[in-house]
């Protein structure tokens, strides 16, 4: 049972932060729920969530080789970059998309059971991370087929991934609340994400726009920065300090946004559902 009491001396922000931290620490709760979600969704299939991984593998194999030929790129360089890019993108896009629906879809639960709202976001994020981990198998397979040099710097992908998760968590929380109130945003997000996909160096490379007017696209696109913080270390490419700093700024901004929204609106969400 969750107590919905807060210390009377708390400011709204403090109370929200306390709740976020307390729930974040209850890994067994949202982690188990996320695992169960996945195991239930694929209960009657043989290979389970690997089905999505296979679909992704087909996309990577076909689109990757075609684009490598189109852009006259070396397949052994383009394919790993495209594969990791698409896998990280899948995590970002599905988290934001599910995030925008997270409270609406759990509406019946929110109105039935007193539980902190953030559990639904954490559960959704954990579910997508589990699927992401399945997809990582593809990267391993690809490495075995066409190895690229590995350095110890690849471990930097872990802090990069954490920055990405914090940013996704923050934006998903805010989006979820916004979409509970304004129902037309969900579809806007879906089409917006498709648009952003083409503006992010996934099916094209950053080198291709080097020196052109489109270079600012890469610099100004938060998706690019967050993606590269995971992709470049995994491919043993150097990431400059400016990108790390920018990634931290995005994560901090998203976290602050989530905290602000949570403090202000978490008590209103049940009324909108």
């Amino acid at each position: 049972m969750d107590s919905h009491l807060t210390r009377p001396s708390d400011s709204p922000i403090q109370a929200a932060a306390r709740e976020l931290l307390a729930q974040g620490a209850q890994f067994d709760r949202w982690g188990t729920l996320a695992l169960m979600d996945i195991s239930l969704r694929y209960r009657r299939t043989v290979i389970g969530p690997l089905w999505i991984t296979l679909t992704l593998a087909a996309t990577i194999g076909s689109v990757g080789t075609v684009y490598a030929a189109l852009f006259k790129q070396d397949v052994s360089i383009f394919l790993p970059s495209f594969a990791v890019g698409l896998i990280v993108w899948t995590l970002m896009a599905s988290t934001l998309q599910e995030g925008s629906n997270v409270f609406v879809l759990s509406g019946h639960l929110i109105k039935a059971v007193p539980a902190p709202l953030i559990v639904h976001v954490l559960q959704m994020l954990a579910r997508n991370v589990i699927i992401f981990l399945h997809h990582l198998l593809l990267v391993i397979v690809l490495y075995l087929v066409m190895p690229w040099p590995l350095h110890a710097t690849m471990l930097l992908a872990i802090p990069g991934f954490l920055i990405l998760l914090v940013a996704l968590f923050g934006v998903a929380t805010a989006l979820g609340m916004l979409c509970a109130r304004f129902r037309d945003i969900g579809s806007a997000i879906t089409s917006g994400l498709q648009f952003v996909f083409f503006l992010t160096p996934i099916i094209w490379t950053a080198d291709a726009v080097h020196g052109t007017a489109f270079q600012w696209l890469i610099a100004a696109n938060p998706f690019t920065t967050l993606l590269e913080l995971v992709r470049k270390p995994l491919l043993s490419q150097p990431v400059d300090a400016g990108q790390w700093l920018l990634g931290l700024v995005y994560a901090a901004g998203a976290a602050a946004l989530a905290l602000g929204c949570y403090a202000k609106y978490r008590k209103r969400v049940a009324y909108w559902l």
Partner: protein
Amino acid sequence: MSISAHIHLQDVSVDFPILSFRERSLRRRFMRAMTPFMARPQAPTHVVSALSDVTLDIRAGDRVALIGANGAGKTTLLRVLAGIYHPTSGSADVLGRCLSLFDLAAGFDEEATGYENIMRRGLVVGARRAEIEARRYEIAEFTELGDKLDLPLRTYSSGMMLRLIFAVATAVEGEIVLLDEWIGVGDQQFRRKARQRLDDIVARAGILVLASHDVDLLRSTCNRAVLLQQGRIAAVGTVDGIIDRYVAGAGDARN
């Protein structure tokens, strides 16, 4: 019996905005802000007051009957006490662990087995994993469903499902028990057992708040009554007094 439980509601109001499709659209808002000269006057947002200025003090030992017609605000009041709705104005101080026994099926999944659903529902209401694992067999035993708990919920009959739902919901206890209609489940033999368990839980709880239309049940269970009318407290008093008043009022309304 727990003596620490205490509920204090001060001028609690709960107003629901009725958001029409139009008001839910951000695009429309944006358009209106961009083209103020073209804007038609905005229709006022409809607000439904589910509760207005409810002030109530409930202390340990109280067995409160919530009485009122459909739509009088009984369920909303229970949801405020449970912490699902935070009052739009006023304050609700609820001291003590709440056991809310309504919407018991929320969190169950058709595809999951009985055992998995025990875990799911437990986690959803905020129990820790280890805690649920420790009580799993106790819950399973109470349902008397045996090996069927390894089957997915969609294969259950509604009676079996109710047994499971009841067993899981009542596996934990609370200092404050909130009931929206008394729960009666299953066949004769299980119904007796369920009744016994619910009686025990209520006996050990510091506070019971029971919303019901069952006059005999209210008389035998409660020692205080609150009459709700259109979201306001119309009267507080003894169970018999309030029931008489409610029945008389309902009779008047009918004539």
